[in-house]
């Protein structure tokens, strides 16, 4: 601490510059991560939420993980029900709605049993009580809808009413409308109340089951296959592309940070090699010097990353409401920790150099 702090105070400009770079890099990493999380949430929140309650989807093999293309026939439904008790039908359909002024909004209709734990909580208004009522995600308010508003649904060409709002239910960047059983039957073309009142299932939602059961199901199912909910996310249009490119940026930022910091600390250490040599000659041992370097690196990186976190949240607060940005505390802690580890790794090369420095050579004056 003795050397580390005094040097930081003496060479302020130099270390402020290093700190500034760490700050900028950490800010960028945090911001891009926030964006990645926000986009993932905006794209898949409705599905991600289900992961809290269930574990697997049974999806049509040929749908390539796209729920909107998948259909599970009666036979497969029966097979699944024979193996697993607590299955739920999930209906997914993408479409549009029109308000009175004929302005069109993209939405996704979801059907799940209102009594199941997959059904979201009402944040405003009421649960749908009649066939032509829906529970909508609150983001649809941005398009001018409020509780009690009516709209024209595209497949049935019937008028539906928003009975209430829920939150954080989006699919493929569109708000999700939870429709009633009756509504779903109408939309999928069957006639409610008639003999043919089977519910159309895009997928079946299964709770946690044993690997054996998964294997059995995969063997017996005709067109269906069992996938984890996590795996099914990549089937949401654009999901893997968005997440892939953003996370690639984050990984690269970390790699760049590691090299930039290593180069910085290395150059600073090289400059001070003579000093380290003198210190060694007068009796400071290597661990003493290594500790001085590490203390400096930790002080600089912790301070800079802390400022970076502050700046990220500040900028996030200033973002427009519609901008998908989400940065959970656990994520921040993880990234910040990783950043500090990267900074320390970056200084290892310097530590090696200090270990190697020859007291005699550094002083230079001892050569006859």
């Amino acid at each position, binding site marked *: 601490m003795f050397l580390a702090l005094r040097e930081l105070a003496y060479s302020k400009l130099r270390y402020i510059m290093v700190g500034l770079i760490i700050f900028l890099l950490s800010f960028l990493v945090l911001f891009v991560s926030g964006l990645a999380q926000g986009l993932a949430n905006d794209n898949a929140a409705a599905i991600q939420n289900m992961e809290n309650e269930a574990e697997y989807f049974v999806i049509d093999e040929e749908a390539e993980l796209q729920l909107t293309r998948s259909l599970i026939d009666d036979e497969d439904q029966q097979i699944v029900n024979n193996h697993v008790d607590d299955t739920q039908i999930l209906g997914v359909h993408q479409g549009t709605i029109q308000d009175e002024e004929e302005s069109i909004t993209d939405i996704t209709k979801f059907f799940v049993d209102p009594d199941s734990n997959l059904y979201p909580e009402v944040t405003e208004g009421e649960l749908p009580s009649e066939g032509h009522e829906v529970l909508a995600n609150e983001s649809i308010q941005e398009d001018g809808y409020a509780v009690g508003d009516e709209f024209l649904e595209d497949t049935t060409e019937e008028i539906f009413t928003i009975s209430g709002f829920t939150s954080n239910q989006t699919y493929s960047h569109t708000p999700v409308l939870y429709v009633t059983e009756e509504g779903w039957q109408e939309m999928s073309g069957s006639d409610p109340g008639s003999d043919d009142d089977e519910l159309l299932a895009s997928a079946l939602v299964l709770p946690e089951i044993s690997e054996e059961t998964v294997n059995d199901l995969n063997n017996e199912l005709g067109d269906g296959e069992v996938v984890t909910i996590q795996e099914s996310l990549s089937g949401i249009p654009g999901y893997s592309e968005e997440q892939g490119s953003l996370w690639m940026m984050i990984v690269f930022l970390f790699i760049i940070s590691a090299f930039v910091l290593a180069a910085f600390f290395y150059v600073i250490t090289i400059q001070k090699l003579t000093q380290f040599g003198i210190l060694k*000659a*007068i*009796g400071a041992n290597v661990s003493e010097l290594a500790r001085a370097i590490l203390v400096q690196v930790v002080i600089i990186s912790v301070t800079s990353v802390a400022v970076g976190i502050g700046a990220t949240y500040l900028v996030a607060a200033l973002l427009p409401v519609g901008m998908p940005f989400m940065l959970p505390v656990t994520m921040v802690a993880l990234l910040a920790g990783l950043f500090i580890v990267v900074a320390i790794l970056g200084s290892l090369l310097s530590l090696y150099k200090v270990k190697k420095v020859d007291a005699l050579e550094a002083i230079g004056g*001892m050569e006859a």
Partner: protein
Amino acid sequence: MTAKLVMENIGMKFGEGSGKTTVLDDVNLSIDTGEFVAITGPSGSGKSTLLSIAGALLTPTRGRLLLNGENVSTLSPKESTAMRLHNIGFIFQSAHLIPYLRVEDQLLYIGKIAKLPKQQAKKRAHERLAMLGLTHRKRHYPANLSGGERQRVAIARAWMNDPELLLADEPTASLDASRGQEVVETLAKQVKEQQKAAVMVTHDTRLFDLCDRVITLSDGKIEQSMKEMVST
């Protein structure tokens, strides 16, 4: 009188194979308590190498080195670092102070790595600085000191841990004649007062009469060792 530093049959060779050069050849030297010895000789004669070996910065190819009766030649690098810290004070050609430490901290740091109690270190640092007339400079950084002041700080630092042996490599090289004289006088006085020993490499013949003995080195051998008459 007991010998502070004993060098027995010290030999030093650099390089390998045919490029091998002998820098020191069978040097025998003994320095007593309270003795201030100058080493001189043409460049390339091995003066600095001898000093580095005496300071345990270099391990000789052969021979035995005793410091305060302890055999230094067999120490591990870690042990010799500790030995340097507690028993040897170095003064280099240029002061080689740590640029980001204030004068007082230069000394306190030595106390710290030697694990001296804080109060004691502080007291000792103040004594040393007062001794060298630097008290009014203790809050200054090396960059704001004159060359002579810097060299005196270096001496104060070398003195900080009460070393048994002080090694100085041309301590006056960066000073003008009168300053150099002054610095070496202080050094000689300290050696006598504290009953330590000091070895100084120098070319400056004017400094010889401050020393108890002048050793002339030539081609890695001691050519002559003369006693000077010193008036203390």
